[in-house]
């Protein structure tokens, strides 16, 4: 662990611990890896960004007098000649949840110092994320082919296109960045950067630790979390 032992500090659970944490001197989350705390702060700010997008979508959809396109029909996909509503979106949801599950297990095996399982699971997560991005690229090209643009579309209210590309695009960017990092960390796990006290990182003199997999996991679960909200509000509503 890269954390120092803190003199005269003992972690207390519950509200008493919360009072201790918020009232402690120098730093707030004592004993928590700095990267983990900072990742949480980043995710909090990201939550606000995504919330603003979804709220502007709500406001845009609520205030247009033109009828909103029916997502159930717009995102339908032909399977064996029969149009199935939201088929691709449902598959994307399952792919992302699968990769979230493998990530959770990777974190668990990382803490158990099981290098092989951790590495393979991180790699599986990366492949899942890549599949998701591929499906999203297919969905985008299909809609663009059908004439959906940020300023117009053949199905209904013109705002539909701009919100669709903005929200799913920003989420897709997050997934893509996550996939890149997942591949990097899969390499780092397999290369043993977290074994035997840890190897020093590329941009830092600090030693690697399996807590980095948990931090990566937090980001990845957040991407899944955002998709839960996009799926509910944009595709199902």
């Amino acid at each position, binding site marked *: 662990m890269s954390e120092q032992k803190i003199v005269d500090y003992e972690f207390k659970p519950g509200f008493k611990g919360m009072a201790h944490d918020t009232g402690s001197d120098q730093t707030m989350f004592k004993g928590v890896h700095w990267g983990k705390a900072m990742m949480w702060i980043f995710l909090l700010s990201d*939550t606000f960004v995504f919330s603003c997008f979804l709220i502007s979508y709500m406001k845009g959809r609520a205030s247009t007098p033109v009828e909103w396109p029916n997502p159930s029909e717009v995102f339908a996909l032909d399977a064996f000649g029969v149009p199935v509503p939201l088929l691709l979106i449902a598959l994307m949801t399952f792919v992302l949840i699968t990769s979230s*599950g493998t990530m959770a297990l990777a974190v668990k095996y990382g*803490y158990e110092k099981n290098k092989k399982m951790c590495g393979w699971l991180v790699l599986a997560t990366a492949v899942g994320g890549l599949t998701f991005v591929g499906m999203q690229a297919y969905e985008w090209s299909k809609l663009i082919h059908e004439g959906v643009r940020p300023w117009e579309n053949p199905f209904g209210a013109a705002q539909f296109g701009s919100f669709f590309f903005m929200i799913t695009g920003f989420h897709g960017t997050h997934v893509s960045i996550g996939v890149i990092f997942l591949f990097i960390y899969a390499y780092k796990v397999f290369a043993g950067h977290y074994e035997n006290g840890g190897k020093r990182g590329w941009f830092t003199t600090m030693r690697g630790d399996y807590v980095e997999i948990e931090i990566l996991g937090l980001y990845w679960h957040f991407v899944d979390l955002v998709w839960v909200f996009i799926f509910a509000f944009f595709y199902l509503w």
Partner: protein
Amino acid sequence: MEETKKKEQQGSTHKIGIYLWIWGLLFVLSFFSYMVDWYQFQGMLRWSLILFFMFLKAGLIMAFFMHLFWERYALVNVLLWPMTAIACFIVLMAAEGQYTLFSRLFYFFVGGGQ
């Protein structure tokens, strides 16, 4: 070194079963929310079901996959209280959306009451 040992025990206390359970539950809940669209429920039933499954899924991911259930309260509170600001923003913008719709209908379609 003592600290390190403690950390290791902390990290590995969660059994694999709980992750698999949550994983399975997420699949089932996603399937249910897809079924809401499949059976074309409409109106309040549709919206309440969508929100119910959404919050359940979000809660499970945050509590167990992101470990918030086991985290210290200080972190949980730092993360969850700002959500009330988002809730306020949603209420404000819902009201604003209603007003914008009213204005558009009134001035563009009714003709401004002349």
